[in-house]
């Protein structure tokens, strides 16, 4: 698959800072024998090469959201426009890893650079990729989604620390048209699906670029982030959670009203699921009940850490991830203050 190698090179060029692991040629597997990583590579490739317009519906934790999507790719550049159809009006534009979200009601436009988008497909290509080690893939025939024939593959976790996925990919293009996140009992926690999709629809990249640049009348905000490391911030994970590798660590202002406080975000991923550990100084006025919460597939754990009597209030941990609550507990138990 020469295409895969080219893709990796393109992603590296776009990601910029991403480190380059040796690229192993993908196996020439038939659909029935594809590994989880092979499947994901095919899906990724499809999303990069296609131009389409569609309506996406997300159902999660009893609530629903939908949006209209325009996607265009000229082989090198990728652009996307996501127009929310539910909730507050919102337009999101993406050009490769640059993202800008317009909120017409507040007249605020938030610009971000999402380096995590450039990390792929290194996640899959890395020789120590956790995906095949922690998930098994099984083809489950085909079904129709949004009027299109789709291949169905199920990714089943090999332990209880992650969720399973069912992925429908359009037969000819490989484009993901439906995605479900499943718990250990096989119940659907969250679903993302196109209700309507026009493949190879006419989408003008010039027009999208023009719309993305047009921030007239909007207050442009940029998220201030400082790259750091967990060690520099005084944290370590004394007991790693199987499959989850540290990906990045940032320091960010904790909130507009309290710019002096900083918040550390330490990000882990097993290739499919990701976990963010948010750590900040404990504040009795703001931090109250400890506990675990769920919204669809996303779980959250809040807990007070490393309280040192007489010195300070310790720390406040908020762990967020598309993983079972037990996984977040494992992170919370393994986190240790070193300073």
């Amino acid at each position: 698959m020469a295409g895969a190698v080219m893709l990796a090179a393109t992603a590296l060029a776009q990601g910029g800072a991403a480190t380059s692991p040796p690229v192993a040629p993908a196996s020439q597997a038939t659909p029935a024998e594809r590994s989880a990583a092979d499947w994901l590579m095919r899906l990724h490739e499809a999303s990069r090469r296609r131009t389409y317009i569609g309506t996406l519906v997300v159902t999660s934790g009893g609530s629903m959201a939908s949006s209209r999507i325009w996607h265009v790719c000229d082989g090198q550049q990728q652009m996307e426009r996501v127009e929310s159809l539910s909730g507050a009006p919102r337009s999101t534009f993406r050009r490769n890893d640059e993202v800008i979200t317009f909120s017409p009601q507040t007249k605020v436009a938030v610009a971000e650079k999402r380096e995590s988008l450039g990390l792929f497909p290194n996640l899959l290509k890395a020789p120590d990729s956790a995906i095949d080690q922690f998930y098994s893939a099984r083809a489950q025939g085909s079904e129709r989604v949004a009027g299109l024939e789709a291949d169905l593959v199920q990714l089943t976790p090999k332990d209880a620390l992650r969720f399973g996925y069912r992925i429908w990919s359009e037969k000819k293009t490989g484009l993901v048209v439906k995605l479900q996140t499943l718990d250990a009992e096989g119940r659907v926690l969250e679903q993302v699906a196109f209700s309507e999709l026009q493949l190879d629809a006419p989408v003008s990249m010039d027009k999208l670029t023009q719309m993305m640049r047009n921030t007239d009348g909007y207050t442009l905000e940029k998220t201030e982030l400082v790259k750091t490391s967990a060690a520099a911030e005084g944290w370590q994970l004394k007991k790693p959670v199987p499959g989850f590798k540290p990906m990045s660590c940032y320091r960010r202002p904790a909130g507009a009203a309290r710019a002096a406080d900083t918040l550390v975000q330490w990000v882990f991923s097993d290739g499919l699921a990701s976990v963010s550990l948010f750590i900040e100084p404990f504040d009795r006025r703001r931090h109250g009940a400890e506990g675990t919460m769920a919204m669809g597939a996303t779980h959250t754990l809040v807990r007070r850490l490393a309280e040192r009597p007489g010195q300070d209030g310790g720390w406040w941990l908020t762990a967020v991830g598309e993983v079972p609550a037990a996984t977040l507990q494992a992170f919370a138990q393994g986190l240790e203050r070193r300073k």
Partner: protein
Amino acid sequence: MTTHEMNERELVSALADGQLQGDDIARALALIERSEEARAYWHACHLVGDVLRAQELAADAARDAAFVARLRQRLQAEAPQPNLVTAIELVAVGADSERVEGQKNFKDPVANDASLRWKLVAGFASLAAVVAVGWQLVSQDGTAQGGAQLAQAGGEPAQVMLRDPRLDQLLAAHQQFGGTSALQMPAGFLRNATFERPAR
């Protein structure tokens, strides 16, 4: 046709094509609201699009109006349900949502497809009243105090959906920089951009 009319038609057409942003959308909607002509043109734009896509969708405008009129009649005939939203908010969390003993039943992959559909219906009904993202409490390690605001008093705290702006903020940050997943590019990014994100 005057220049003025031309501009109005172009505006409506652009709205139908999804080419407008911000103020222009508001301007176009206001126009459609006050001008019968603009409304007719709006309908014509959709009709043209529908005909291009599928023959059977090319129904005439009177049919839509008749449907709305019938729906209105039926809604007026229905008995009011004052406690609807309250009932929807109190979605009980199954005690087994934390069970982690493995993939015993994984062979039946869509065990709750039907129940998902039920939740979806509930979601529709509550959407108008409760736009906020709700968190369900899974388990309680401590006593409830401060921080989280309970959306609904009474009943077991462990069965209540709650809303916490701070959590929403962190969730947004997680989606923004924590979405390190092989699924991020095909679907994850679109999912996050679609799902209600709290204002930052």
